[in-house]
């Protein structure tokens, strides 16, 4: 039994920030983070990026000291990631915003459409339907955040929340403005268009929920290792045969159906941006899967079956 020593240097200045004596060889990085936090209370573990190389990737909590290429005296580098915020908190804030902002426009608050139109309601049933669907979507997302999702990274930098909120809340306001406007024009193909859109919406929301449940089941025991998701008995999960990230596929489907339902250009624009963003995320995930698993199903595409 040889006890190790760990010195932690600042990644930029290379100044020694701390020297840990008598560290057990099977200590995890999580434990080292806790020890570092004791010496520097303002740098809580989630904020610490500990790496082997000043320009390298951050080490994961589960890594064990003696398995690292360091020898008995390890030199690690520390980088401050800035104030962090938990993913759950982020999602709760991001999704509650659009929910309530939409209501401001639906109920026609006086400062939105002027005093003459305050608190009036629209003669078009589709406007009420749109409100129900929009709210349903975000309530579902909030429920998933609290009960379903299991996050692989605990936190994200604080400044991300400002950026994300501006985007989600801003777009929610913009599209809610036009849908609930007194001069709103209902869809050109009338009831056929609306019914089609509603059915597509419900199917996609059910699909999206099924996928989230399936993904969360993969991590049931609190494990943080990645596993290949497979189709289950639920027909909605059968999209896994064709696509790596069917949750994104269904999400885009939801927004396309909402665009058809409301026939509103801002909604279409939001759908387009969602599609672009989710394609980027899906491709990322897809290539990560391909790299990690040699036996990854070859039929699968990132987000659209056979195409993208």
């Amino acid at each position, binding site marked *: 039994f040889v006890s190790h020593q760990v010195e932690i240097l600042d990644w930029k200045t290379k100044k020694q920030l701390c020297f840990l004596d008598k560290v057990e060889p099977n200590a995890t990085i999580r434990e080292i983070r806790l020890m570092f936090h004791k010496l520097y209370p303002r740098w809580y573990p989630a904020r610490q990026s500990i790496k082997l190389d000043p320009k390298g990737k951050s080490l994961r909590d589960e890594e064990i000291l003696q398995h690292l290429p360091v020898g008995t005296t390890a030199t690690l580098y520390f980088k401050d990631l800035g104030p962090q915020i938990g993913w759950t908190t982020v999602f709760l804030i991001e999704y509650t915003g659009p929910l309530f902002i939409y209501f401001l426009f639906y109920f026609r608050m006086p400062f939105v459409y002027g005093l003459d139109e305050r608190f009036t309601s629209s003669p078009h049933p589709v406007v009420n339907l749109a409100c129900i669907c929009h709210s349903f979507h975000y309530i579902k997302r909030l429920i998933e955040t609290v009960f379903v999702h299991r996050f692989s990274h605990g936190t994200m930098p604080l400044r991300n929340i400002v950026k994300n909120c501006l985007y989600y809340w801003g777009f929610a306001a913009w599209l809610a403005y*036009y*849908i609930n*406007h007194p*001069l*709103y*024009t209902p869809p*050109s193909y009338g009831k056929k268009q609306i019914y089609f859109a509603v059915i597509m919406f419900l199917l996609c929301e059910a699909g999206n929920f099924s996928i989230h449940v399936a993904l969360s089941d993969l991590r049931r025991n609190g494990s943080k290792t990645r596993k290949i998701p497979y189709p289950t008995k639920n027909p909605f999960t059968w999209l896994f045969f064709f696509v790596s990230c069917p949750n994104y596929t269904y999400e885009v489907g939801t927004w396309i159906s909402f665009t058809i339902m*409301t*026939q*509103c*250009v*801002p909604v279409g624009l939001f759908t387009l941006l969602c599609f672009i963003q989710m394609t980027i995320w899906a491709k990322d995930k897809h290539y990560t899967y391909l790299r990690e698993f040699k036996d990854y199903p070859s039929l699968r595409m990132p987000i659209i079956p056979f195409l993208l």
Partner: protein
Amino acid sequence: HPDIAITDNVLHFKAQGHGAKGDNIYEFQIEFLEPVEPKPVCRVTQRQLNITVQKKESNWWERLTKQEKRPLFLAPDFDRWLDESDAEMELKEKEEEKINKMKIESRVPKDPFKHLKKGYLVMYNLVQFLGFSWIFVNMTVRLFILGKDSFYDTFHTIADMMYFCQTLALMEIMNSLIGLVRSPLIPAVMQVFGRNFILFVVLGSLEEMQSKPVVFFVFYFWSIIELFRYPYYMLSCIGIEWKPLTWLRYTTWIPLYPLGGLAEAVCIIQSIPIFSETGKYSLGLPNPLNVTIQFSFLLQIYLIALFLGVFVNFRHLYKQRKQHLGPKKRKMK
């Protein structure tokens, strides 16, 4: 430590060495046939000592030493021996290598359309140069004759030619796209679209804008810049470089480009109220798309983009200028 010196054209050498007969002091002297530089260069290794002596005058010697008989201890190293005929042969070899290289280079497939492409580019640049010269001369003459009054009907007289030149400028994008010209695509696209937006949309579609004095300045700045740019391109296509033109092309933009940008900005600012009032290119509610498009708002965004674009482009052009003009300056020093 060897004792090496040259005095009166005689090389003196004295050193301690370990030889076959043990440690001894070795020395010799050599008097050179013709004058040599008094400072020899010495390099010592484990097994030998290299002394390099430089001739005062570069020419071929009959022999090394002044005395006619070669000293017994002196033996030529024929690996390094060089006499007149040898040197000539070396030169000839070098020349042959050069000719071979050129032959290999010319074996690379020649572009059959090379002359056609060059001809087209020269024609394009020439036509543009003539067009903008016509615009510039016309505007200058009218300025002298009519003074400030020429500002108000600049558009009326010049627009057709400007439409022609700027429509033709779309070819510049095509040239960059198909690789005919080595310049990057995006700056070309930005320049052509930026100018055409002002010309066709902001000025062309609003009669009220066409009689404003700012039009004179926009057209004038555009044409002066092109007066230098197109001839420079024409000459560089043929492979000629006229240094004063290069200097002008890479210097005149410094006042002209920002001024041109300023004139365009004034154009947009003046047009915003007109677009607001007339609602041209704008879409209001109710409409089946359920969106409102306010062209005047889009113009305001465009204005910000214009300032940013001019700023970024200015830095890029300045770097380009340093590349093309800089190194020569250093040589002159």
